[in-house]
């Protein structure tokens, strides 16, 4: 899988490229719109990650050109503009997804994988982490053979954390997926719900599965490797 990142901020481009390479992608970089167009004309890409404010040719302009020459190439927009009509405008111009700076890299990976139609999230009906078993069809949660009763939000939170086991989910990601943006930056609602979830899922058992990663968020994994839960 070969990706092109068109981004004029060198450091941001480097950081994203490094992360994506670590995920197993081949990544090319272009620092302005013209270079971006040359790359697109010369190589075959599976995904384009596009900043909007670019020198020489703007991202919006480039997006239109790409759509004319290459209608099926998935395009993920990366921008500091977060106004709704900006988003609408670019979706109309042919963007497939939209990510606002400052984004979480984990979120970027999820979006990239989703655009590449590689199952970014766990699709199995039953998710199993250690002895925790979540049935997505019946919404039943069992651990060590015991049934665990969860409220709707608690279940949604657990299911989201399990969508990609051992990946760290930031509070922003959790809020956006389980709640909505109204709660962003205001409440500690995520921490409260994680605490309640732990009380039911982890407390009765010696092995803890829900881990806090300070400064980042939460993840669910078996407690081996670098596990220093809280």
């Amino acid at each position, binding site marked *: 899988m070969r990706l092109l990142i068109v981004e004029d901020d060198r450091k941001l481009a480097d950081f994203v490229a490094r992360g994506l390479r670590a995920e197993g992608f081949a990544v090319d970089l272009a620092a302005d719109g013209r270079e971006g167009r040359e790359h697109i004309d010369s190589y075959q890409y599976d995904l384009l990650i596009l900043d909007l404010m670019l020198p020489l040719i703007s991202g919006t302009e480039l997006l239109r050109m790409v759509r004319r020459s290459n209608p099926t190439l998935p395009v993920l927009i990366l921008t500091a503009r*977060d106004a709704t009509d900006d988003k609408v405008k670019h979706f109309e111009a042919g963007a497939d997804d939209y990510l606002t700076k400052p984004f*979480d890299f984990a979120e970027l990976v999820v979006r990239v994988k989703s655009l590449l139609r590689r199952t970014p999230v766990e699709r199995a009906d039953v998710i199993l982490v250690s002895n925790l078993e979540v049935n997505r069809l019946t919404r039943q949660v069992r651990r060590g053979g015991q049934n665990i009763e969860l409220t709707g939000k608690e279940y949604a939170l657990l299911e989201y954390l399990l969508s990609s086991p051992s990946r760290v989910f930031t509070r922003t990601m959790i809020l956006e997926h389980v709640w909505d943006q109204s709660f962003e930056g205001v409440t500690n609602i995520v921490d409260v719900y994680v605490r309640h979830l732990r009380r039911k899922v982890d407390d009765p058992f010696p092995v803890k599965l829900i881990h806090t990663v300070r400064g980042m968020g939460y993840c669910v994994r078996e407690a081996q490797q670098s596990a220093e839960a809280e």
Partner: protein
Amino acid sequence: MNHRSLAFRLSLWYSLLLSATFALVGTGMFYGLQQYLRSSLRDSLRRRSVQVEQILDQSRPDISDAEISDAINTRVSPEFNNRFVRVTRDPATLAYRSGPPADRSFDPKAVPPIPGDWLNSGVVRRTVTVQAQRLMVSATRIETPSGRYLIELGSSLASIDALQDRLLALLGLLLPALVVCAAGGGYLLVNWALRPVDRMSQTAEQMSMKNLEARLPVVPTGDALQRLSLSLNHMLKRLRDSVQNSRRFLADASHELRTPLTVVKGELQEIVAGVAVHGEMRERIGSVLEEVARLEHLVSGLLALSRFDAGEAKLEWSEVDLAALGESTSEQMRLIAEDRGVELESSTLEPTVVRGDRGRLKQVIVNLLDNAIRFTPRGGSVAVRTARDDLYSILEVHDTGVGIPTAALPHIFERFFRVDEARSREDGGAGLGLSIAKSICSAHGAEIEVASEVGSGSCFRLVFPRPETATGPRVSARANRSDAALRHKPQSFSVARAPATFSPGAASSASEVGAGGSSQPAPMP
């Protein structure tokens, strides 16, 4: 009529001036006419007197009274001319006296003689009153061959007096009427001249920080008014430019911060997620990351505010039931409240639909609820209430928390304002939440108000004008507004209202809410 208005004072002043001028002119006219009439009467008396003198002078020394009579009657004919003539011969013999005048205005016999010795008394002219008639009588002494005579010629002053009376009446009626007309006309004229100023002030009234594009109407009068409107417009333009510059700066700055923030956050997250870092180092980077998250919220808050300031924030309008939104939001926050040992009460709210952006309104309610829960001690309660009347839809968030000091109330909607520095900072608040809430409300045409008392709790209230009365006057209905939620709190709260015109409103609003809460039954359907 405003007694201090320019029009009123101007009219008053020049009415006074006009009255004074008229009084002077009137007096001058009156006395001038009197002088003129009297002097012409004097002249006419003098001429007759000369005629009588000639008769006596040219007469023989032994002329008889009958001859004198004949001569005077023929030459002077005083009765026809309504004159009085009396000739007295030295020492005191009546030589001639005219008969009653044709108009019977006086009786000649009743005219008193010159008192004392007429030969030596200096009386030349006098005014005598005969049977309520004023007569001007002039006297001439002559010496003739037939002896010394006193010739008295007189005439009634009645016609002069009548003329003067009529003049007085005319002036007395006409001048005040003129003054009144001039004052009224002047008042209208000044008001008319000031109308452009009125229009200018109306336009200026409608301007706000968000609407600095409007310009005052320029009156093409070529005078001070035109210059005033032009220079005010110039000032507005400069004001707009500088406001735009500062907004642009805020927006650009928040914007530019986002890319480096992404890098900082991303790199640090990568380090933390990696396996190479352990223990204390991990904690420290985590702590830095927490600060980065705060910075992130700050930047997005500032960007949101700058967008509201610039009027660029787009709202997704739909019909929103405040009650349903309040209930569902409370439901989502219930666990947070329980966690803090605070009771959250939001059952059976009165449905009231407003037009608005559901997401933004939810953001406001989340913010208010979060604050309420955060500042309410364990065992307290937080309640959401809604109410509506003909004019307003209202949503209130009450708490029995620590309250807000009166001194802080006017500032709590200001950016970066914190009631208690240490406490809020510890909780991670950036001090932008209420400013954003206020901006969101303003964008909806709603107001956000707060009432609070230290130790008893606070009440934040969102007031939405009902759609059909959106343009209706706000003030008149204020007092009637249903104070459902405040009913159970008889204390008088201090109130702050979000719009910046704060200072004079604080005290009066406080009493208003207090009164509404204690004495008024809420007029709710």
